[in-house]
C-alpha cells in the first residue's frame, strides 16, 4: 500500500510540477495567475492524441510505440507553445498596465473560451489515448505494481525539470527572464526586450504543460475537454505550496501535493481527494502565504 501510493504520488506529482512551473514562471514575471494555463495542459493532451492518430493513418503499417510517444510530446509542446504565445499577445499584453483585476478576468475569459473551443471542436465525449505498449508492468511485487508508463513519466518529468533549470540558470534568455522578473524597468534599460521575454516565458510554461498533458493522457488513457480546470487549480496549489514565483519551489510543491493526494486517497477516502488539495492550499495561504521556498510576500501586502 505505502509503496504503491508512493509511486502513484510521484507520478501524479511530477505532472503537477510540470504544470505548476508554467504558473510560477508567469506569476514571477507579470504577477498574473494565468487561469487559462490548465486549459493549455488539456490542449496538450488532445494535440498528442490527434498527432498519434494522424501518424497512424498517414503512415502505412503504423509507427513504433516509442516514436508515437515522441511525436505526441513534440506535437503537444509545439501546439501549446503556439497557444501560449497567442494567448499572451491577445488577452494579456493589452492589459499590461491595467489594474490587477482586469488581466485576471481576462484570464478567466480565455479559460472559458479555450475549454468550450475544444468542446465544440472535439466533442463532449472522452477521447481515448491509443494503447501503445503491450506489456506495461515494469515490476510486480504482489502488492506493488509499477507500470512502465509510470517510470517513464517520473523520469520524463525529472529530465524536463533539469533541462528547464539549465535554461533558466545558464542561458542568456534564462538570465534575462530572471532579470525581467525582478525589475522590468531595469531590464528594459539594459536593452532587454521585455515583451519578448514575457512571450518566451509563456511559451516555455505552455510547452511544459503540453508535455504534462500527453503524460497524463498516456497514464489514464482518457482525456476530456474539462480536465484542465481541476488540474490547473491543483498545479496552482503546488506552485503556491512551493512559493509562487519560485521555480524549484514549483517542482517540490508538485511532488508534495501529488504524494499527499495519493496518500490521502489511499488512507482516507478517494472522494475527498480534491478537498485535500484545496485544504492544503488554504492552509498554506493562511499559515505561510509565501510557500515553502518563496520570498516573503507579506511585505507587499
Amino acid at each position, binding site marked *: 500500500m505505502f509503496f504503491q501510493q508512493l509511486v502513484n504520488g510521484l507520478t501524479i506529482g511530477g505532472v503537477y510540477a510540470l504544470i505548476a512551473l508554467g504558473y510560477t514562471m508567469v506569476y514571477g514575471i507579470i504577477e498574473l495567475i494565468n487561469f487559462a494555463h490548465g486549459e493549455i495542459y488539456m490542449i496538450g493532451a488532445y494535440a498528442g492524441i490527434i498527432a498519434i492518430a494522424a501518424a497512424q493513418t498517414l503512415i502505412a503499417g503504423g509507427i513504433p510505440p516509442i516514436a508515437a510517444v515522441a511525436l505526441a510530446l513534440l506535437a503537444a509542446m509545439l501546439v501549446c507553445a503556439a497557444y501560449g504565445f497567442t494567448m499572451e499577445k491577445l488577452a494579456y499584453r493589452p492589459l499590461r498596465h491595467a489594474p490587477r483585476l482586469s488581466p485576471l478576468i481576462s484570464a478567466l475569459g480565455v479559460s472559458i473560451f479555450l475549454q468550450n473551443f475544444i468542446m465544440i471542436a472535439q466533442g463532449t465525449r472522452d477521447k481515448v489515448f491509443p494503447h501503445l505498449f503491450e506489456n506495461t508492468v515494469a515490476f510486480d511485487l504482489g502488492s506493488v505494481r509499477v507500470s512502465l508508463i509510470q517510470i517513464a513519466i517520473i523520469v520524463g518529468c525529472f529530465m524536463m525539470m533539469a533541462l528547464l533549470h539549465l535554461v533558466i540558470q545558464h542561458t*542568456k534568455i534564462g538570465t534575462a527572464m530572471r*532579470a525581467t522578473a525582478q*525589475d522590468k524597468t*531595469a*531590464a*528594459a*534599460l539594459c536593452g*532587454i*526586450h*521585455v515583451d519578448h521575454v514575457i512571450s518566451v516565458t509563456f511559451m516555455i510554461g505552455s510547452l511544459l504543460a503540453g508535455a504534462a498533458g500527453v503524460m497524463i493522457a498516456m497514464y489514464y488513457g482518457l482525456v476530456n475537454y474539462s480536465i484542465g480546470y481541476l488540474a490547473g487549480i491543483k498545479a496552482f496549489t503546488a506552485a503556491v505550496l512551493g512559493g509562487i514565483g519560485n521555480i524549484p519551489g514549483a517542482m517540490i510543491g508538485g511532488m508534495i501535493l501529488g504524494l499527499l493526494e495519493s496518500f490521502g486517497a489511499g488512507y482516507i477516502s478517494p472522494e475527498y481527494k480534491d478537498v485535500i488539495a484545496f485544504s492544503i492550499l488554504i492552509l498554506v495561504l493562511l499559515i505561510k502565504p509565501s510557500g515553502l521556498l518563496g520570498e516573503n510576500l507579506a511585505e507587499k501586502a
Partner: protein
Amino acid sequence: MLEIRGLHVHYGAIHALKGIDLRVEQGEIVTLIGANGAGKSTTLMSISGIHAPSSGRILFEDFPVEGMRPDRIVRAGISQVPEGRRIFARLTVQENLRMGAFARSGSSVGNADLDTVYDLFPILRERRLQRGGTLSGGEQQMLAIARALMARPKLLLLDEPSLGLAPILVERVFERIREINRSGVTILLVEQNAHMALHLASRAYVMETGRIVISGDSRVLVGDPQIKRAYLGEMDIDTTQKPTRSA
C-alpha cells in the same frame, strides 16, 4: 549629440514635463540639477524610452528616438544608470553585467568588456560570483554603472549616483565618472547634490516643476547667487548635505 526640443510628458492627469529643451554635445559632461519632483528622472526615463512623451522631439545623433522601444534606444547607444541603482539583486554580479550587454549580439562579445569594467571597478571582479543584493551601497552603484557600460554606450545617463552614499564613496564614484568621460563617453548627469555635480560638469541645466529655469556654464552657475541660495546653501557645505530649497 543629444537634442531635446519642447518635450512634454503626462502621467495620467499630471503634467510632469512642460516643454523641456536641452542639448548635450559630444564628449561633454552635462548636469541636470533641481529639487525632488522637478522632473529630472522623468526626463531621463523619456530619453530611455520608458515613458512615452506626449509631444516634443528627442534627437540622438540627429536621429529621432522619441517613442522608440527601450531596448532599441540602448542599441542606438544610450544607456542609463537608473535612480536607486536597480541592480538585479538575485543575479550574480557577473550575470548583472552580462545582462548589461544583452542588446549586443553574440555570446563571446561580453568577455573583453567584462575585463574592461573589472579594470575600472576592481572590487566587482572580486565579487563577481556574489549575488548583487549582497553588495554594499557603493559597490551596487559601481555595479549599476558597470552594467550600463557593458552596452558600450555613446551617451551615458546617470540618475543620482550619489544617492545614499557616504561622502568618501561619492568622491570615488564621481572620480570614475570623470574617467569614463575621458574614455570618450558623453555623460548626462542628474543630481540633487548640486555642489558636486556643478564641479564635475562643464554645463548645467536647473529644473523646477517640470521646466528648465536656468542653464549655462557650470562655473558661472556655481557663482550665481540665486543658485547658491536655492541649491548650494549659503555656507560652505559638506557633500553629504542634501540641498534644500527655500521656495
